[in-house]
């Protein structure tokens, strides 16, 4: 039951996806490292399909939701008009859309990088929440006597470290106890949510309130905004810059190449002598760091204080990652789209239509389901063509 972590096959395969002693390699390939999963969400072979499938899925999903609501008696055209106007109607709305794309982009990158290397980190939500908590703790409670810029930097770093450590817990549970990361991260999301609320009820609670809510961050510690009277903070371009960096690392470096091979074909990676175990650990820490950074930016740049309900960007990041075919630049595009979708839906909810903003979540979910179907169809067609040759 408790194998020491140093028996030969584990070391050779890098610890994280050991061949089980009963020889059921497939089980581990499926749940723990999930080469198959990676294959399933890999982009289709043809460039035109890469672009067409997400667009088709988005159009289909939007049509379904708008159509469904118009069946309930809501004006379809009025809904679409308000939604689009709310998303990109003027420069204020565009700035708001960009700002809400920021956490989606970072959690999307977190999920994307992890999935690319076959690490099924579903825990971006918990990592995001604890990143925000650590950041707000640093900014409101434990700020050292330093210039504000230094404290902001420290807060961001605190968020990154917290997210990374939380991801590290899931990694350690897999590495040393064989708990699949899919499961541990799901459960750790809930532990993180309760932990965050406990801290917001406890040491971080603002004076004069009984709600789980932190004090407001001093204005000197807010992330500077690029356009006045908007939330378009300096973290937004940084996030997009990170997407480019991630793209370059995956495309142009040995590290990136090893991550990709580890994900798509762990056996080949092991045979080639790649340090799979170390790569998985690094990927998990990077993934958690990105999600933690999303939390830090959100609290320092947009919310300026934290409550127990602080968005579900971690879960939405899974959808963002998939819509972008797990490719950093694709993820950036997907985050822009979902950010606009969210901002527009918020305006629709506040408008006379009074439709719930949750319909944006429905759109996202349907997009993913349709994409999985279309990608599966494309893969199957390719397989048939190959067999035909």
């Amino acid at each position, binding site marked *: *039951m*408790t*194998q020491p972590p140093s028996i030969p096959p584990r070391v050779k395969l890098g610890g994280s996806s050991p061949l*089980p002693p*009963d020889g059921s390699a*497939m*089980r581990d*390939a*499926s*749940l723990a490292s*999930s080469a*198959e*999963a990676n294959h*399933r*969400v890999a982009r289709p072979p043809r460039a035109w399909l890469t672009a067409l499938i997400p667009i088709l899925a988005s159009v289909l999903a939007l049509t379904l939701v708008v159509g469904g609501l118009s069946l*309930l008696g809501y004006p379809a055209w009025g809904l679409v008009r308000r939604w689009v106007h709310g998303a990109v109607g003027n420069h204020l709305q565009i700035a708001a859309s960009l700002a809400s794309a920021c956490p989606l982009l970072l959690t999307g990158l977190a999920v994307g990088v992890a999935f690319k290397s076959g690490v*099924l980190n*579903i825990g971006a939500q918990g990592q995001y929440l604890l990143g925000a908590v650590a950041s707000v703790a640093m900014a409101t409670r434990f700020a050292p006597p330093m210039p504000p810029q230094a404290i902001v930097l420290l807060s961001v770093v605190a968020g990154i470290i917290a997210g990374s450590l939380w991801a590290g817990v899931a990694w350690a*549970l897999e590495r040393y*106890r*064989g*708990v699949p990361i*899919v*499961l*541990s991260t*799901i*459960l*750790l*999301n*809930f*532990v993180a949510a*309760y*932990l965050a609320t*406990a*801290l917001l*009820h*406890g040491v971080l609670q603002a004076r004069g309130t009984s709600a*789980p809510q932190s004090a407001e961050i001093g204005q000197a510690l807010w992330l500077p905004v690029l356009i006045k009277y908007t939330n378009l903070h300096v973290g937004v371009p940084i996030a997009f810059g990170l997407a480019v960096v991630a793209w370059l690392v995956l495309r142009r470096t040995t590290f990136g190449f090893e991550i990709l091979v580890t994900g798509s074909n762990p056996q080949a990676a092991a045979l080639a002598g790649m340090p799979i175990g170390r790569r998985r650990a690094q990927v998990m820490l990077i993934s958690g760091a990105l999600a933690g950074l999303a939390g830090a930016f959100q609290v320092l740049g947009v919310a300026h204080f934290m409550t127990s309900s602080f968005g*579900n960007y971690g*879960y*939405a990041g*899974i*959808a963002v990652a*998939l819509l972008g075919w797990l490719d950093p630049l694709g993820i950036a595009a997907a985050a822009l789209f979902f950010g606009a979708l969210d901002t527009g839906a918020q305006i629709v909810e506040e408008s006379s239509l009074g439709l*719930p903003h*949750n*319909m944006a*979540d429905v*759109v*996202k*979910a349907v997009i*993913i*389901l349709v994409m*999985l*179907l279309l*990608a*599966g169809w494309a*893969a*199957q067609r390719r*397989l048939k063509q190959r067999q035909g040759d």
Partner: protein
Amino acid sequence: MSNAHVSLFTFISRQAVLAATPMILAGTGELLAETAGVINIGIEGVMLLGCISAYLAAATTGSGALGLLAAIVAGLIAGSLFALVGVIGRGDQIVAGAAMNLLAVGVSGSAWMLFQNARENANLPTSLPQGAGFVAFSPAWADHIPFFGPVLLHQYGLFYAAVLLAILAAIALRYTRAGVILRALGDSPEACEAAGVGVKRWRFGVLLLAGACAGAAGAYLSIMRTHTFASDMTGGQGFVVLALVIFGRWRVWGLVAGCLLFGAVNSLQQSLQTLRYTQHNAIMHAFAGLPFELFQMLPYVVALVALAILSRSAPGPRFLGVAWQK
């Protein structure tokens, strides 16, 4: 149940069974699906869809039975949607499951807001109409049976259905042809196909069953244990079920034991939360200063610890999570 003469232990045990019921229901369905090689991490979402469907149907028709039926139908629809993507379309099961969760959050949140608005406009009361929610059995004669009477007989009808389902599933997996096929689907789908068993058809069927179970579990939460709906009412139970299936090593009795254990930890932490204010002794005093979220966290920590202890020793279905392609 007349609470006056019931001991604390009996009370906590009854609460544990109450809490375990939806997880036994949803868990048995998930266990069958996983045995057949399909993992549905969207079970939480299907439960949530069951919650909202049951509540809306019960509130609009005034009938609890129709509410339960609506939840089961919602579960069937959600199950077939997942199967369409994950089995027929060969989409990644983890991602499809995550999408199901997102879908459930969106659909239930939207439906709840629209319903509340409509109810407000029509000036209807904000509670379920009389008879639209289920109440637990409370036979007077059961009070005379020590412990087991209050714990096992003061329960909702769905508890007995869940127990029956679990027993049937355990027997079926062990002794019937269908059980052999289900296990083979997870361990060796190729052999199934060679023997003329349609892998996709069987997996689709078992996902329908799992969906119906999870839907009914949702109805239990919204129109039985409580007579209300809240957007976070499933509270991760569907995810804990995934851990408990592993905890039980893909065996029904193990799963049921895990559910009862989880229910016990949950009701213990709830009791601790209240006891620390009412009981004045040294132990409770030590607890009194802690935020109650730390208690709510406990069941998830226990689930993680259980996984950490047991994961290594539990080889699951060989092809769990792997799509089948002819």
